[in-house]
């Protein structure tokens, strides 16, 4: 006979143990929730998955027109389309993850008040779903690079590291916002604004070389600065690669992630009560 696991139920104090083994056990659930979101997202649209490609393309066109053509924003000597798209690729994932993970616990409140599972699975699944879009946009970008005849060179080997940095930043922010939103719904209404503000604080439509050299390192306090610059550096060979600014971004991202996980895990036991456990 199989060994029977023993669970102890008591009120936990302080910071709950992270219990990574349990998270591993529930990994399939994260996958299934993401799969549900992907399947449902474009369900009643006529053009379906084409939206994934259209959205960044449209954004790229608008930015190229207004910033590249009319405002003459410099683009480190690159075609402006490509310059923007290489940044939109990580930005799109980031902005989608923070807006969707913020409301994710509310959206799935019936699940949370009726079934036990590690709640962190819910915001994690939103990022998995967003990664599908990420891959599609990446293909688009590679196709455009081919058209412009740009080959990334050996630097592209650093790309996985920057993708990891992107995921860590997105999840870190996502954990904080989703957990806070359970208790303070104000968060939900702040996020669209936050998203826009963050967009302009990140060198998506302009290069970070616009900033004076001596201040540039502080720019790295925004983890997405490091991500976007890193993506450009790996793929297009421009912008800052392994610089102090990017290192600072990485440090900020990792601390956001670590503190986010701890905060989330220490609050998740109150979620079922906060989300209202009586309603049938």
């Amino acid at each position, binding site marked *: 006979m199989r060994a*029977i*696991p*023993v*669970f*102890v*139920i*008591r*009120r*936990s*104090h*302080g910071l709950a143990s992270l219990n990574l083994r349990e998270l591993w056990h*529930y990994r*399939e*659930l994260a*996958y*299934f*929730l993401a*799969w*549900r979101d992907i*399947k*449902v997202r474009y*369900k*009643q649209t006529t053009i379906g998955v084409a939206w994934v490609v259209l959205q960044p393309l449209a954004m790229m066109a608008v930015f190229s027109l207004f910033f590249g053509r009319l405002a003459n924003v410099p683009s480190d000597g690159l075609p402006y389309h490509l310059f923007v798209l290489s940044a939109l690729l990580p930005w799109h994932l980031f902005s989608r993850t923070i807006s969707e993970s913020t409301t994710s616990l509310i959206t799935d409140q*019936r*699940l*949370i*008040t*009726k*079934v*036990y*599972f590690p709640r962190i699975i819910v915001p994690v699944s939103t990022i998995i779903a967003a990664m599908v879009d990420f891959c599609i946009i990446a293909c688009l970008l590679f196709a455009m690079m081919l058209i412009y005849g740009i080959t990334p060179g050996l630097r592209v080997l650093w790309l996985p590291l920057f993708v990891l940095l992107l995921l860590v930043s997105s999840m870190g922010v996502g954990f904080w916002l989703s957990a806070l939103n*359970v*208790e*303070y*719904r*104000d*968060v939900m209404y702040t996020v669209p604004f936050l998203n826009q503000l963050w967009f302009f604080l990140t060198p998506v439509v302009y290069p970070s070389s616009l900033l004076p050299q001596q201040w540039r390192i502080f720019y790295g306090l925004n983890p997405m600065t490091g991500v976007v610059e890193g993506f450009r550096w790996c793929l297009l060979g421009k912008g800052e690669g392994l610089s102090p600014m990017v290192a600072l971004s990485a440090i900020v991202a990792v601390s956001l992630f670590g503190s986010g996980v701890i905060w989330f895990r220490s*609050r998740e*036991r*109150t979620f*079922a*009560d*906060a989300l*209202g*456990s*009586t309603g*049938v």
Partner: protein
Amino acid sequence: MGDVAIKIEGISKQYRIGELQKYKALRDTLADAMYSPFKLFHSIFGSSNTEDKGGNGTIWALKDVSFEIKRGEVVGIIGRNGAGKSTLLKILSRITEPTCGYAEIHGRVGSLLEVGTGFHPELTGRDNIYLNGAILGLRRAEVVQKFDEIVAFSGTEQFLDTPVKFYSSGMYMRLAFAVAAHLETEIVLVDEVLAVGDMAFQKKCLSRMGQVSKDGRTVLFVSHNISAILSLCNKVIYMADGGIRAIGAPQSIISSYLADVLANCGEDLERLRVQGYGKDVWFSEIKMVSNSREHLLFGQELVFELRVFSRRQVKHLSIGCTVFNDVGHPVGTLFTSETFSVEQGKQYYLRLLISNVSLAPGSYHAGFSIGYGGLNGMRHDLDIVIGSPAFRVLTLSEGEGAMPDWNRSWGNIVFKDAQLTVV
């Protein structure tokens, strides 16, 4: 200690009143912080629930509950709404934490707290089986292995590739229960799942539950369906006001529970309402007006007066009435063939007359439902109240139709108009 499945010591759960509806606005916390910065720090990084100040703005949903359940036992939990049954199951399934106390659970817990949780209306039946399985803690491989069995159990083969939003509510429930019924955890927690579905499917569910316990698994079972509890459980816990009133053999516990229910009937129907019903249309008063309010003589007709309140317009409503005996077994049921409509925001008085009842002398209580749809499993109830009114049928010792003392082992129906001829 080897055969203990669940051991609970002094489990209590406190809720702040209003906590269930209200969420904090950031400004409240910020306002608090203005007054005492330390408190903010404490409320964020400190413990999750406020320390029990006792009474003031808080309620105890559970108070000092202790018991032990052995492996393979099927335990029924009964009690009125608000007695703490569901809170107890929520704590055992780790959805919420106890305020204090300690519990030890030997084995994985599968909970059927609400059937169909996590179903997505846009996904097909097939997709939902996988999704729901994952939510309930089944591995993908396990679902694949049991897929055919689950589909066969639910009887929805032809509709597997149809989004479940097109399912009838009966089909939806059958599919949802089928997934949950195939969980293979050592401990199964069930909350009121049998309140749904048609009779045939309920029977199937009950026998499935019986089978689960034969496999040596432990079942905790919350239900208002007393006869299901009687037929399935070998132990019953009777909860009241957040604590355990009695625990022991089903027959005696259920009798004392029903005695309590009936002693206090006539009070608010809210406590007798089956959970989840009475949202749009509900009974606000039910009384018997036959002879007196408590008893009638054998052979007399039953007359009930029902007051119904409606929050929205509903057409083609009918009333269902079931009479239960003193151990909670249903004796008989009727559905009115007459239908009626209700308007939004209005109150209606209904009178239900049942003649030719033939109920044997004894104690009974009635249950009423209001709903629409046919009886072939498609009926949709809007409100169900069980336990009121309670009444006694008295022996008529003289005159025509006189009855002797009725022996309980004869059942609850007196057959009339029999003819015996010597041929």
